[in-house]
């Protein structure tokens, strides 16, 4: 359909809303309640424009679909005045405490008032007051005075997260946002309301008063907390990681991140972090520390045990694999926190493919815990494209609260048999079918489930998605270096990251630890070396659908801290392995050539897109 917006012609598909059409040609129509991931409601009236043909009043651009030959005027006197009037209403109860508001600098209410509002306020009347700020969880504060009642937060909870911890109480001008019976928010998806709120009504308590939007830089990176691989922005100021926000990638996260990804970052700036290699508890140079380790672990075969971190990068895993194929051959390698699922399946279901599934089956997994943002994508498929959902779990999981979701229970330990029985389940007779499977947090035999799921998928023509738990579990599985669950019986142990839940095995003759924080068992270590975090490390992760994504660290490792790949290269040298990588790009090139699963490493990460230009806005009245 072709229409004109302020004289610019634009052609868009039928059903497109006027706001979206305007975005395409860079015309700004201000919005509060409208959000492209939520259903339109038309609650705030800020998006008023003049339409012809149309009624002689301004209409909401966020609820009106385009029509052939329509003329939209964003800058006509009627439209400009209507929006300015709405903004004046929005500000009647607004406290205007921008100087102490964390939203200041990235606040649509500020920006729109500046670009579309009246320059001065006529309001003399007293404003509504509420107690503020109100903590609504450990991590989020609510300021009801600043709220413009756009209902983005409550609609998000309802439509996207399928929870109603957050609601609107009272009505009319007295309405305010409240948590269920004033209880703290519990959801692992709560933090997205901070990004959604168009004003400073919902702010992060973790970031509160730490910095301003304009004094930070950010990099377009990837979350390191689980195997979903949500895209994030990492915000830095003066060498510290200030906050983490969502960065929309429709193929993976659809613009959401979970609270683990959003709030678990403060350790990066902790003064308690290890900074210095130590040998026998005294500070030492890297060369000494690494040669001590090399001398102790070289050629020990299966008597050497290695534990590697969940968020090891592909590059680090590649360098480690070289050591394991050489001087460390035969060593036992474990990855605490991973599932027991085997390597990648044949017919992988991509996260974005969930949108098109007719039926989704979830086997032996609480998706909300294992792969949080995949949980939201499943909900989207059910709510927006009418997918049918079948959960196969011993207990009910969060999906099952939704009417229409079918549940198949099985005796714990018999997941694989339950999967085979699904063969003639009525819901699976019509495709496309997507099967998500886990190992019930370690309670089931992942290999048996994977085999059963592969069989079922082949029989009914389904695609499958293993729900790995560890961030780069899939990348490491592709290299084939993992060969155990426990280091028991190993005499020489090198822990990297948090060791196994059971701690360091008994009877260890040599212990070296590579870690970002001191842990009790470090006391027994001959050598301790400091590790970088996701905010300093270069490299990439393979997410649970097999997609390789690059970390873009906003921080430099503070000397003597060194990046993971550098340490591994030097450890290789100390072990007598020739190696002369000058930069991580050379590691990536070799890794891509050696392992087909890492071929994507040869393609350098795309440069960050330039900041979006400020759209053509309507002039002030």
């Amino acid at each position, binding site marked *: 359909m072709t229409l004109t917006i302020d004289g610019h012609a634009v052609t868009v598909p039928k059903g497109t809303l006027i706001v979206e059409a305007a975005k395409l040609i860079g015309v700004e129509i201000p919005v509060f309640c409208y959000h492209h991931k939520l259903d339109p409601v038309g609650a705030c009236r800020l998006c008023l424009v003049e339409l012809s043909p149309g009624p002689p009043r301004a209409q909401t651009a966020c609820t009106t679909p385009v029509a052939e030959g329509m003329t939209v005027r964003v800058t006509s006197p009627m439209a400009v005045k209507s929006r300015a009037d709405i903004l004046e209403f929005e500000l009647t109860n607004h406290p205007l405490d921008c100087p102490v508001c964390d939203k200041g600098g990235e606040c649509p209410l500020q920006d729109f008032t500046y670009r579309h509002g009246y320059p001065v306020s006529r309001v003399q009347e007293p404003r509504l007051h509420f107690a503020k700020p109100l903590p609504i969880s450990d991590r989020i504060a609510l300021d009801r005075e600043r709220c413009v009642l756009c209902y983005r937060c409550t609609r998000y909870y309802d439509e996207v997260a399928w929870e*109603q911890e957050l*609601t*609107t109480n009272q009505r009319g001008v007295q309405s305010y946002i409240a948590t269920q019976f004033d209880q703290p928010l519990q959801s692992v998806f709560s933090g997205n309301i901070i990004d959604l709120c168009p004003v400073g009504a919902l702010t992060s308590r973790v970031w509160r008063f730490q910095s301003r939007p304009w004094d930070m830089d950010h990099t377009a990176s990837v979350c390191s907390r689980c195997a979903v691989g949500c895209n994030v922005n990492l915000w830095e100021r003066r060498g510290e990681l200030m906050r983490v926000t969502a960065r929309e990638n429709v193929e993976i996260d659809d613009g959401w991140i979970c609270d683990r990804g959003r709030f678990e970052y403060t350790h990066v700036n902790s003064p308690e972090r290890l900074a210095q290699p130590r040998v026998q508890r005294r500070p030492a140079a890297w060369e000494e520390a690494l040669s001590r380790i090399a001398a102790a672990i070289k050629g020990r075969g299966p008597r050497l045990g290695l534990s590697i971190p969940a968020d090891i990068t592909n590059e680090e895993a590649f360098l480690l694999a070289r050591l394991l194929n050489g001087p460390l051959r035969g060593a036992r390698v474990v990855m605490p926190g991973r599932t027991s699922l085997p390597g990648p399946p044949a017919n992988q279901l991509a996260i974005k493919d969930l949108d098109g599934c007719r039926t989704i089956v979830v086997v032996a997994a609480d998706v909300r815990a294992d792969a949080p943002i995949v949980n939201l994508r499943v909900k989207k498929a059910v709510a927006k494209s009418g997918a049918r959902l079948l959960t196969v779990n011993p207990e009910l999981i969060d999906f099952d609260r939704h009417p229409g979701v079918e549940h198949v229970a099985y005796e714990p330990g018999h997941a694989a048999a339950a999967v085979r029985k699904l063969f003639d389940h009525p819901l699976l007779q019509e495709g496309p079918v997507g099967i998500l499977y886990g190992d019930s947090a370690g309670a089931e035999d992942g290999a048996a489930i994977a085999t059963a799921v592969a069989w079922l998928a082949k029989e009914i023509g389904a695609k499958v998605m293993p729900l790995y738990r560890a961030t780069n579990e899939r990348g490491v599985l592709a290299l084939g270096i993992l060969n155990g669950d426990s280091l028991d019986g190993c005499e020489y142990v090198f822990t990297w990251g948090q060791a196994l839940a059971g701690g360091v095995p008994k009877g260890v003759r040599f212990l070296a630890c590579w870690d970002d924080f001191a842990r009790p068992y470090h006391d027994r270590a001959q050598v301790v070396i400091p590790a970088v975090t996701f905010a300093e490390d270069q490299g990439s992760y393979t997410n649970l659908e097999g997609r390789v994504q690059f970390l873009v660290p906003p921080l430099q490792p503070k000397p003597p801290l060194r990046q993971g790949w550098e340490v591994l290269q030097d450890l290789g040298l100390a072990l007598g392995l020739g190696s002369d990588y000058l930069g991580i790009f050379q590691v990536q090139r070799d890794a891509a050539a050696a392992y087909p699963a890492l071929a994507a490493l040869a393609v350098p990460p795309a440069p960050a897109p330039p900041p979006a230009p400020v759209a053509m806005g309507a002039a002030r009245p």
Partner: protein
Amino acid sequence: MTLSDHTLKEIRELPPKYPHIRSAVMPALDLVQEELGMLTQEAMTQVAQALQVDPGYVEGVATFYSLFHLEPVGKHHLYVCNNLSCQLRGAEELLTHIKESIGVSEYGQVSADGLFSVEPVECLGACEYAPMLRADHRFHYDLTPAKIDTLLKEWRGDREGKKARKEAHPRAGSH
């Protein structure tokens, strides 16, 4: 305060009558208020469980409507119309009179004997009989302080009051 099994059963029978399960929340809350006189947090949670919605949603609905009571009210809660017609015919004086008679200083406060509370409301659609009030699902018309006294007497269990009212107000209707 929690709900009786009987009310819960009635609530569970509501959803099929509505296109969406959420539509059953209002009639369910009506049933709760009928039984308990007010909506307690426990009862709202019970409603939420019975209808398989979140308690937060029930709370949002309950706070939206001023006819749902979230605080205790008297056994007889008096909704006294205070809109234009009733106002012109002395609603304000009636309200003051009622407050004094039942011994409360604030709207919504419950009298010491637990029998009464009073609240001004907007037009109840009976302007032709102004001033008027609604209590226990009945409308009472053409009120004067004297008629209020009779009503209160009756509600206090005074048989004389009842008789007196029947004679004085043959018109009192039920809506």
